[in-house]
């Protein structure tokens, strides 16, 4: 009687520690993979605007230039400090799948890639870094169609350190 009980104890103990170990292993190992999967590494590491767009959206051509209102800098098209340049994206387009902001002359152009749900209403405002006087491009993909607007921004102090 006593021995069977003891046997059961050890079995239980073993089972518990095994399951804890499994839990620790999965939480520790799976998390970084999941996090990495969310980030489009190739798009963000692309060194030209075209490459970044191809990697992000699978297309870089046939962009319409209307339907998108884009403001960079404050006052517009000028920034004293390139380390934080305000941007504002406004659009009346429906079914927006993705919004991307790219700075042509930055070492890595892609700054932001935004995926809004149907509950999100523009304008969207944020801050980006701009290394030197450069074209800044905002791209919206809605209903599979690309809409693109470009603004030239003058920067007094480069901000991509």
């Amino acid at each position, binding site marked *: 009687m006593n021995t069977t009980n003891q046997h059961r104890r050890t079995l239980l103990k073993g089972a518990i520690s095994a399951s804890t170990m499994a839990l620790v292993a999965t939480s520790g190992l799976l*998390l*970084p993979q999941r*996090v990495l999967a*969310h*980030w*489009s590494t190739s798009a*963000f590491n692309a060194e030209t605007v075209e490459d970044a767009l191809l990697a992000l959206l699978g297309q870089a051509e046939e962009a319409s230039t209307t339907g998108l209102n884009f403001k960079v800098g404050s006052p517009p098209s000028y920034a004293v400090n390139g*380390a*934080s*340049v305000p941007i504002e994206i406004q659009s009346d387009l429906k079914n927006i799948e993705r919004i991307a902001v790219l*700075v042509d002359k*930055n*070492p*890595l*152009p*892609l*700054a*932001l*890639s*935004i*995926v*809004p*749900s*149907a*509950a*999100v*209403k*523009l*304008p*969207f*405002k*944020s*801050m*980006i*870094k*701009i290394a030197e006087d450069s074209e800044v491009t905002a791209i919206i993909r809605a209903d599979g169609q690309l809409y693109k607007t470009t603004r030239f921004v003058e920067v007094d102090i480069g*901000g*991509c*350190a």
Partner: protein
Amino acid sequence: MGLVRKDRIRAKLKSGDTTVRILLAHPMHTGRGQNDAGDLIAAEFIQDFRCWRNKEEVLSIECGTATAANPYFSFQLIGGERGDKIAIRWVDNLGAKGTAETTVK
């Protein structure tokens, strides 16, 4: 360093829509900057940002190194009412995480 690093988030009801403003506390090092001694500062920047309203995901943003330090985001959510819970979470390239939550005022 004295300063408290804290993610700030404000959500306000304005003519029927919810205005959300978010300020994250993060240095956003690109990996190209130098410290005072001239050594490169290792890259450290937020990669993935998500926002929920009442446990429903409403927005996700992927940031690159060109996102400014202490990233600021502002946008509106259609509808909503006072007391809605707005939650955010970010993850950086080193795996550090941050969360913040607020209720709509």
